C-alpha cells in the first residue's frame, strides 16, 4: 500500500490512515534530542575542543596547481618563538601504490594530506606546523619556503585528454581498455555498462535526441570547516576529537597513514556542521596525530573557509553526451550516454555511479553507459550526496524534456509511459523490487503546483532522480537505566537527524514514548564497528540494528519478569511497553520502570545489542522535482518562483527531517544549477574561495521548497524505511535547466545557468 503525505497533512479534520494508526511514535514529529544544544550554541563541534597544554596547527599550502617540489625549507619557521614542530610527507608512514583496499587508495590519500614530491593542485598541503598560538602557527606556515619546478597545469577534461599534455600522475595507466595501456595517462579508468543491443536498436527509433551537456566543479558547501584535535601519549596511543561522517573511517585511515595499529587510536565524534559526503575522508587527522606525537602535547587544527574550498571536497565537473531514441508514441527504444568526470588530482571520480544511475528511473531494454575518470589539477573529488548521479541525471532528464517537446507530450506523461516499476531491470543489472517512481510521477501530476499557470518568461521544468540506497555494517546498543528510561548508542555521527530517528524506532519497538529514550553517538571504543554515515544508509541499516537491539533487550526483560514472577519465560510476552504473563490474569503487567527496579535482583543491568551487516533490503529511492522559474530578459537573472520535491521515502520515521532532507537536497541542487562553480585563473589558482564569491543559495534566494512524501513501504525494513538523503539532489539540476530552457525557448546545456550564459542565448 502506498500513501501520499504532507500536502494531505495540511487538510483540516483529516482522518489518520490505517497505515499511520499502526504506529504510535513512527510518523510523528517530536523535537529533536540534539536540538536545544544546537540552537543555543552549546553543541561541541570539531573546532570547539580545548585540551590542556594544547598547541595550534597551521598548514603551508601550494600556490601552484602543478609543480615538482625541489626543496622544503622550514628553518625560518622553526626559529620563530613558540613553534614546536613541523612535519612534511616524510613524517607519515611509508606507503606504496599497492596500499589500497576496496574503499580507499592509501598511497593517494597520504599524498593528498601532505604532498610527496609534487604538488597537484592549488592549495595542496605541503607542511604542517604546531605552535603555542594560532597566530604563531599561521606565521610559521607562512615562513616555510618551498622551491618548485613549475609545470603546466591540466585544468579541464579537454586538456587532460590531449596528446602530449602534461601527465599528472605517472602511476596512472588507463584501466578498462581492451588493450592494456602502455603509457601513463590522465585518463584513469574507462567503465562501461551494457544492456541489450542499443547500437542496433537505435535504427528502430523514430525520434532521436542527441546532445552534449557540461557541468562545473562544485563544493558540498558544508558550513562547518574541517577541524580536529589529537593527543598522542607516551604509550603510543592516540585520541582524536573531530567532526566527520564516520569515526571508524577516521580511525582506520589515520592509523594507516600514521603507521599505527587501528586499535591504538580512539576517535571521539564531535557534532558535525554538515558533511554531504565531503566528510567521508580525512585531511587533518594524521597531521594532528603526528604533530602531537612529535611535541608530546595535544594539537588542534582548524581549516578556514579558503582552505576548505581550495583543498577539500569538491565533486566532479563533467561532460555528458546523451542519445535517446523513441517511437512516435513516446516509447523509449534505446539510450546511450558517455560521461567524462573530473577526478581531481587523484583517480576516483564517481563516474561509474553516474553511468549506473543515468537511465535507472526508466524501463529501457537497450542501454549503453560509458564513463571516463579523468585527472585534472584540482582537489581530489570527494563524495557529494548521490555521488555521480546529479550530472548524469541532468543530461538524461534534459534529453527527455527535449524529447517530450518534440513529441508534443506532457513531460510527466512521457516519463509515466517509460518509468521503471517493480520487475524492471536497471541498466546496471538489478531487477527492482517494489519501488515508487510511478507513484511520484502521479503525485506530481495531481499536485496543485503542476496545475498552476505560467506567464511569459516563466518556465516549468521537471526531472526525476534515482539513488540505490545501501545497507552495510551497523552496531547498536540499548540499555535500561535504573529509572526505567532507555539509552540507545550507535556508532554513526548524526548528520541528518538520526538521533531522533533512532530514538523513535527504539521507542516504537519497545512500546514506550520517545521522550523516554536518549540517543547517543558513541566513540570508537564504546561501540563495535559501524560503517560511516553516508549513502542514505543510517536510518535504514543502523535503524535495523536499533530495532534488533531493542528486540534483544525485550527478550531479556521478559526473562527477568518471568524470573521475578517465577513462571516459564515462554509465558511472558511484550506488549505496549510492558511484560505480560499470558496465562496468569492475576499477575499485573510489568512496565519498564518496574523491570528496572527488579534488574539487580534478577541478574544485574539489562541491555540489548545488535552488530549487523545489512546486506539486503535497502529499497532504491526515486524522486521527482517540479521547478518554476522566471527569467529577467534584461539581466538574465533567474528567480525560482516555486519548487516542489516529491519522493518515495518508504516510511518517514520523522516526517519533518525527511522533508528537511528533500528541501536541503533541492536547495543544494538549485545552487549547482544556477550559481556554483569553481573559477580558476589561467595558472590554476582558485579565484572564488569564500561564500561571497562562491554563491551557494541562501534563504532569500529561494521560495519555500514544498515537499510531497510518497510512502511506498520498503519490504526490506521492519517499518518500511528507505534511505532518503541522496535522492533529493539528483533531480534539481535537470528540473532547473528544463525550467529555464522552457522559459526562454532555448535548450540550456551548460551549468551553471548564470546570467551571462542566459543573455548570450536570448540575445
Amino acid at each position: 500500500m502506498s500513501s501520499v503525505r504532507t500536502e494531505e497533512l495540511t487538510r483540516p479534520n483529516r482522518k489518520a490512515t490505517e497505515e499511520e494508526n499502526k504506529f504510535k511514535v513512527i510518523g510523528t514529529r517530536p523535537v529533536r534530542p540534539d536540538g536545544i544544544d544546537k540552537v543555543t550554541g552549546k553543541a561541541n563541534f570539531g573546532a570547539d575542543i580545548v585540551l590542556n597544554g594544547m598547541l595550534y596547527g597551521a598548514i603551508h599550502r601550494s600556490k601552484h596547481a602543478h609543480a615538482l617540489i625541489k626543496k622544503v625549507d622550514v628553518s625560518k619557521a622553526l626559529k620563530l618563538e613558540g613553534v614546536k614542530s613541523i612535519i612534511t610527507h616524510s613524517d607519515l608512514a611509508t606507503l606504496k601504490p599497492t596500499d589500497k583496499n576496496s574503499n580507499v587508495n592509501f598511497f593517494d590519500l597520504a599524498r593528498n594530506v601532505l604532498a610527496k614530491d609534487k604538488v597537484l593542485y592549488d592549495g595542496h598541503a605541503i607542511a604542517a606546523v604546531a605552535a603555542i598560538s594560532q597566530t604563531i602557527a599561521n606565521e610559521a606556515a607562512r615562513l616555510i619556503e618551498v622551491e618548485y619546478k613549475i609545470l603546466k597545469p591540466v585544468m579541464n577534461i579537454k586538456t587532460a585528454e590531449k596528446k602530449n599534455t602534461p601527465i599528472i600522475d605517472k602511476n596512472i595507466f588507463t584501466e578498462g581498455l581492451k588493450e592494456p595501456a602502455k603509457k601513463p595517462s590522465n585518463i584513469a579508468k574507462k567503465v562501461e555498462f551494457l544492456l541489450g543491443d542499443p547500437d542496433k536498436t537505435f535504427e528502430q527509433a523514430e525520434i532521436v535526441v542527441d546532445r552534449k551537456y557540461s557541468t562545473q566543479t562544485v563544493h558540498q558547501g558544508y558550513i562547518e570547516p574541517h577541524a580536529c584535535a589529537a593527543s598522542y601519549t607516551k604509550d603510543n596511543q592516540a585520541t582524536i576529537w573531530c567532526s566527520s561522517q564516520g569515526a571508524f573511517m577516521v580511525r582506520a585511515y589515520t592509523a594507516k597513514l600514521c603507521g599505527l595499529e587501528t586499535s591504538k587510536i580512539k576517535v571521539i565524534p564531535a557534532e558535525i556542521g554538515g558533511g554531504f559526503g565531503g566528510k567521508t575522508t580525512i585531511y587533518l587527522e594524521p597531521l594532528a596525530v603526528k604533530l602531537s606525537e612529535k611535541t608530546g602535547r595535544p594539537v588542534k587544527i582548524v581549516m578556514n573557509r579558503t582552505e576548505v574550498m581550495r583543498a577539500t571536497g569538491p565533486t566532479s565537473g563533467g561532460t555528458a553526451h546523451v542519445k535517446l531514441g523513441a517511437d512516435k508514441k513516446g516509447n523509449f527504444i534505446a539510450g546511450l550516454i558517455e560521461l567524462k568526470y573530473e577526478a581531481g588530482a587523484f583517480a576516483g571520480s564517481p563516474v561509474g555511479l553516474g553511468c549506473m544511475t543515468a537511465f535507472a528511473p526508466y524501463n529501457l531494454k537497450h542501454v549503453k553507459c560509458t564513463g571516463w575518470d579523468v585527472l585534472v589539477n584540482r582537489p581530489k573529488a570527494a563524495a557529494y550526496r548521490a555521488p555521480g548521479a546529479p550530472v548524469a541525471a541532468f543530461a538524461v532528464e534534459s534529453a527527455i524534456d527535449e524529447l517530450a517537446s518534440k513529441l508534443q507530450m506532457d513531460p510527466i506523461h512521457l516519463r509515466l509511459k517509460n518509468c521503471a516499476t517493480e520487475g524492471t531491470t536497471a541498466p546496471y543489472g538489478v531487477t527492482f523490487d517494489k519501488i515508487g517512481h510511478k507513484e511520484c510521477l502521479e503525485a506530481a501530476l495531481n499536485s496543485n503546483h503542476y496545475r498552476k499557470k505560467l506567464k511569459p518568461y516563466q518556465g516549468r521544468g521537471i526531472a526525476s532522480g534515482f539513488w540505490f540506497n545501501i545497507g552495510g555494517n551497523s552496531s547498536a546498543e540499548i540499555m535500561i537505566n535504573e529509572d526505567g528510561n532507555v539509552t540507545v548508542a550507535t556508532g554513526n555521527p548524526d548528520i541528518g537527524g538520526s538521533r531522533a530517528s533512532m530514538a523513535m524506532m527504539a521507542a516504537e519497538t519497545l512500546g514506550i514514548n520517545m521522550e523516554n529514550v536518549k540517543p547517543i553517538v558513541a566513540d570508537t571504543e564504546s561501540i563495535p564497528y559501524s560503517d560511516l554515515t553516508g549513502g542514505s544508509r543510517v536510518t535504514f541499516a543502523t535503524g535495523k540494528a536499533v530495532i534488533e537491539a531493542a528486540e534483544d533487550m525485550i527478550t531479556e526483560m521478559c526473562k527477568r519478569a518471568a524470573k521475578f514472577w517465577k513462571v516459564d519465560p515462554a509465558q511472558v510476552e511484550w506488549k505496549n511497553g510492558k511484560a505480560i504473563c499470558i496465562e496468569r490474569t492475576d499477575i499485573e503487567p510489568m512496565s519498564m520502570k518496574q523491570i528496572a527496579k527488579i534488574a539487580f535482583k534478577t541478574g544485574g543491568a539489562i541491555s540489548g545489542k545488535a552488530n549487523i551487516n545489512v546486506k539486503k533490503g535497502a529499497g532504491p529511492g526515486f524522486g521527482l522535482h517540479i521547478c518554476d522559474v522566471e527569467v529577467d530578459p534584461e539581466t538574465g537573472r533567474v528567480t525560482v518562483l516555486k519548487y516542489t520535491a516529491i519522493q518515495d521515502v518508504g516510511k518517514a520515521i520523522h516526517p519533518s527531517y525527511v522533508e528537511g532532507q528533500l528541501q536541503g537536497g533541492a536547495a543544494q541542487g538549485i545552487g549547482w544549477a544556477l550559481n556554483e562553480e569553481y573559477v580558476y585563473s589561467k595558472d590554476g589558482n582558485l579565484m572564488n574561495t569564500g561564500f561571497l564569491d562562491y554563491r551557494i543559495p541562501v534563504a532569500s534566494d529561494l521560495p519555500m521548497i514544498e515537499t510531497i512524501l510518497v510512502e511506498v513501504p520498503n519490504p526490506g525494513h521492519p517499518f518500511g524505511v528507505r534511505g532518503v538523503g541522496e535522492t533529493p539532489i539528483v533531480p534539481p539540476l535537470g528540473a532547473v535547466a528544463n525550467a529555464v530552457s522552457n522559459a526562454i525557448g532555448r535548450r540550456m546545456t551548460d551549468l551553471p545557468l548564470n546570467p551571462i550564459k542566459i543573455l548570450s542565448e536570448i540575445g
Partner: protein
Amino acid sequence: MKVFIPSQIANGYTNGLHELNAEGEKLDQVIRSLDDQYPGIKNALSEGFACALENEIIHDWFDEDIKDVKSVRFIPAIEGG
C-alpha cells in the same frame, strides 16, 4: 549460471569477455570456478566490486545462496555521500 563482469575486469582477465559461465549453488563456489578458469579474477573482483543478485546489491559478498538466481552480475561498489 551466467556471470557478468565489468569491462575493466573483462579486459584484464577474460580477454574482453563480459559474460561468463560458472557452476555453483553458493556464490563462493561460483567465484572459485571463475578463478580456476581465469586466474586472479577472484582477487580482482574482491576489490571494489559489489555483486548484483536479482533485486539486491550485495557488498561484502561471500557465500550467498544463489541456487534460485538466474544470473550474477558484478558491479562497482556503491559509495554514498
